[in-house]
């Protein structure tokens, strides 16, 4: 699969309209090498060690595909795709780091692993070696990805920061996932713990500094030094985490049964249980019981919301205490925006992913479905609860915390108009619906989260490619039909929208497209909910349907935009009849002479060339030219009264 990703990445890069550099070639080559190595290891059946290695690689495939394949495909489409590429890379690294041991709990194979003949040290360090190789290669690949379309190689700070990430995955992932007995919880804490430690450290230092120098500014005292302290503390954090990881694994005991309920994120949610005990306030009806159950099933979004609250409060405290707007040692990261983006995105993703898969993971799906309530009602309630909870925890909650941490409240935030908020909500719902669909084709939440992220990347790429390609083709179609007609032949366009109307119509079209796609995804998801996890062949068929709908939607939207644009141009031509008269264009195209600057740019013809041919052509045919062109070539503007010969 990675080889396919490499080929797609290479093709996409070759077809992309941008300047290339050295890394443009290196990145797909690295990817091919990585994919080839995995394929070779996976295909080799002989040898116990190789089989173990192949098993480890297979177990890490989901994370590896995200961390390596995601950025490779997305970033191949050039600048502007860095955000999605970075999200895929980071998410993949988290899954890789926490999944090395967490997946053994998720798949209930930890007992099997521990009972295998061989010392625990060999098992532990074997996994660590595979993890180091995978995360290292993924990071190199990501570096090549961003370097391949960047005019400058990333700065040394950025490169160092980038290479800290795989170390975070290797050193802290095993410990946190072994402690929480879950890939999901482990990956959440992999982000939360270092951020919290940095903020707490900074708070402590600034408090101590204030006691010694009450009048001094934080930036004067520790502004520069703090980053150094962080770099000193980092190896310490990594070392302690790595040692604790090994000690935890060495002393690991399997709880009763070792089943899904003995591990995972649910034991972490005791405070949530106490809070939900109050919900609903009265009554023991089946609806309230079901809603309570659905809310409790979404343990990861709750966990994310609580962690985000904690980190936001720490950020707020640090800001207030230090008077700094960005209390964070890494200059190029804005902590508030980063937290809101990461936690908002992850909450929405996991809300959808946990919808059905969490229940499948717990093994309670069958039991739940045989309770006396129609499956369709259970489905509607499940989806409704998920969407509402996702919007509350993934949109409203980050927004509230973000606004709270802004010193001047709403005044600091350039709030977009209502329609854009609406689009934001729609995109959030779309993201959750992708998660819900992924959840119905997966057996556990982590698998669903990986599938959701993969689907998101895939759909982004398809939408981007289709819209670009179709837009180019459409542009030629619409403009030719308009521009080849003389201005006096043109009828008035059916509609000409004002810029405001265009924006509103564009948003309505986007909303409709997202809603329709969401409806298709939910329709397929409902089938899977009722019929169980579909077979691979059925999944491929469903992905085909989703792809077809997406392609049709993008083509429709682009066609509509092109048509409206051409109507606008037509109206402009009617209003300014000398701009592009038909004979002038036809003749000039034949003669290949230069048009005026604007027209030449639009048609990709070199501006101001072949003046002799222009003169000859216009003299011969007495062709009408616009005033500007005529002036440029020293011709007299005259009306073309005679029919063209």
């Amino acid at each position, binding site marked *: 699969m990675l080889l396919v990703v490499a080929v797609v990445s290479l093709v996409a890069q070759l077809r992309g309209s941008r300047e290339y550099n050295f890394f443009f070639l290196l990145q797909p080559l690295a990817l091919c090498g990585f994919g080839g190595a995995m394929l070779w290891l996976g295909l080799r059946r002989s040898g116990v060690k190789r089989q173990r290695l192949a098993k480890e690689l297979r177990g890490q495939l989901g994370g590896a595909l995200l961390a390596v394949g995601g950025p490779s495909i997305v970033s191949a489409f050039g600048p502007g795709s860095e955000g999605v590429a970075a999200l895929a890379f980071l998410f993949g690294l988290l899954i890789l780091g926490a999944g090395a041991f967490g997946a053994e709990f998720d798949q209930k194979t930890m007992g099997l692993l521990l009972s295998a003949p061989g010392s625990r040290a060999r098992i532990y360090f074997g996994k660590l070696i595979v993890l180091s190789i995978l995360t290292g290669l993924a990071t190199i690949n990501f570096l090549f990805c961003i370097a391949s379309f960047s005019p400058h190689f990333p700065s040394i700070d950025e490169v160092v920061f980038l290479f800290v990430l795989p170390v975070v995955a290797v050193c802290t992932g095993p410990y946190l996932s072994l402690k929480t007995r879950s890939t999901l919880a482990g990956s959440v804490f992999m982000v939360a713990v270092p951020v919290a430690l940095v903020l707490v450290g900074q708070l402590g230092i600034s408090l101590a500094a204030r006691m010694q120098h009450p009048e001094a500014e934080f930036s004067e005292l520790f502004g520069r030094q703090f980053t150094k302290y962080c770099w000193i503390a980092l190896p310490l954090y990594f070392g302690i985490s790595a040692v604790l990881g090994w000690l935890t694994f060495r002393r690991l005991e399997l709880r009763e049964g070792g089943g899904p*309920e003995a591990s995972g994120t649910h034991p972490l949610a005791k405070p949530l249980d106490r809070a939900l005990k109050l919900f609903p306030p009265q009554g023991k009806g089946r609806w309230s*019981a079901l809603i309570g159950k659905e809310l409790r099933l979404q343990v990861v979004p709750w966990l994310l919301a609580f962690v985000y609250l904690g980190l936001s409060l720490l950020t707020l405290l640090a800001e207030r205490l230090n008077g700094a707007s960005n209390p964070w040692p890494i200059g190029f990261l804005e902590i508030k925006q980063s937290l809101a983006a990461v936690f908002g995105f992850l909450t929405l993703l996991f809300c959808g992913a946990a919808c059905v898969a969490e229940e499948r993971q717990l093994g309670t799906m*069958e039991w739940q*479905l*045989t309770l006396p309530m129609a499956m369709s*009602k259970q489905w509607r309630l499940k989806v409704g609860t998920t969407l509402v909870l996702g919007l509350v925890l993934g949109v409203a909650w980050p927004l509230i915390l973000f606004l709270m941490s802004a010193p001047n409240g709403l005044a600091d935030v350039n709030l977009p108009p209502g329609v854009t908020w609406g689009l934001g909500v729609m995109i959030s719902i779309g993201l959750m619906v992708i998660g819900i669909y992924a959840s119905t084709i997966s057996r556990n939440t982590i698998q669903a989260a990986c599938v959701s992220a993969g689907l998101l990347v895939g759909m982004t790429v398809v939408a981007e490619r289709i819209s670009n390609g179709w837009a180019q083709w459409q542009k030629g179609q619409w403009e030719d039909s308009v521009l080849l007609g003389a201005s006096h032949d043109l009828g008035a366009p059916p509609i000409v929208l004002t810029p405001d109307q265009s924006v509103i119509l564009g948003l309505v079209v986007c909303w409709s497209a997202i809603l329709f796609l969401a409806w298709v995804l939910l329709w397929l998801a409902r089938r899977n909910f009722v*019929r169980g996890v579909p077979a691979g062949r059925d999944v491929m068929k469903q992905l085909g349907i989703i792809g077809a709908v997406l392609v049709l939607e993008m083509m429709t939207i682009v066609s509509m935009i092109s048509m409206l644009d051409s109507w606008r141009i037509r109206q402009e031509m009617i209003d300014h009849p000398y701009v592009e008269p038909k004979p002038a264009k036809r003749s000039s195209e034949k003669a290949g002479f230069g048009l005026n600057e604007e027209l030449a740019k639009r048609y990709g013809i070199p501006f101001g060339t072949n003046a002799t041919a222009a003169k000859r052509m216009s003299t011969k045919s007495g062709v009408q030219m616009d005033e500007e062109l005529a002036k440029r070539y020293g011709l007299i503007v005259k009306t073309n009264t005679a029919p063209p010969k």
Partner: protein
Amino acid sequence: MSEPVIELDGLIHRYGKNDALNGLSLEVEPGQCYGFFGRNGAGKTTAIKCLLNLLRPAGGKVRVFGMDPVHEEARIKARVAYVPDFVAFYPWMSVREVLEYQASFRPNWNKGSEEALIGRFQLDPAQPASALSKGQRTQLALIGAIAAEPDLLILDEPTSGLDPLVRREFIQTVIGAYQDAAPGRRTMFVSTHLITEFEGLIDRFTVIDRGRAVLTMGADEARGKYRRVRARFEGEAPPADEFKEAKSVRREARSIELTVNGNGDEVLAKLRRWKALDLTAESLSLEEVFLEAVR
């Protein structure tokens, strides 16, 4: 004649290219304790899931209480309780909360029965479901199923994971009491490998093999028809070829053991002609009948 509680007619279900059910047909009358026996992978759980609309069959007819599970699933599920082979509960709930959760869906929940069964199985109501052992989870599922007082109780390997003491207690006391409380109305459909444990309860049974019913019979009828005949001879035992009407023949030097299906008298007469010295005939247990059916 009353309407069958369960009616399967030519049921077909496939997982990809594999036929899980290949024209399965059976009928369960009200008030019966119906055994559903088969080897691993024979299609028992698939058939049960089709009954509960957890799987959609590719062909054939499914009716529960005369209703189609696809279109009237809520009405069917209101009268059915199901204990799956793999029992799991929400880990954040305690034993009491699991039962309260189930009770919220069941208007006929029998609180007295719930309390009695909790006491009988010695479960701690405050214990978290995540701390229960496999056997205890099965017990909790059984309490939930019995206290719901359903008209049809579907049990899929209900005694797996239970210790022998609890298993006997459950089968002889709990299940017996459940049916006796409303004789003729409460029906049980039991899929199990532990046929011996349910020997005394089963009224009628179907043996399923490769998705098809290979034997459907009343328990008493089976015991009457399937018999094992043993004979000892003074000299060498007659050759096995002589008893082609028997389902199986095991011959030793001076003795012979035959399993017969409905033609026991004929075989006995033949053995007498061979001057058997010591001749005994005994009914087979349901487990032995099952083994003969799938062999």
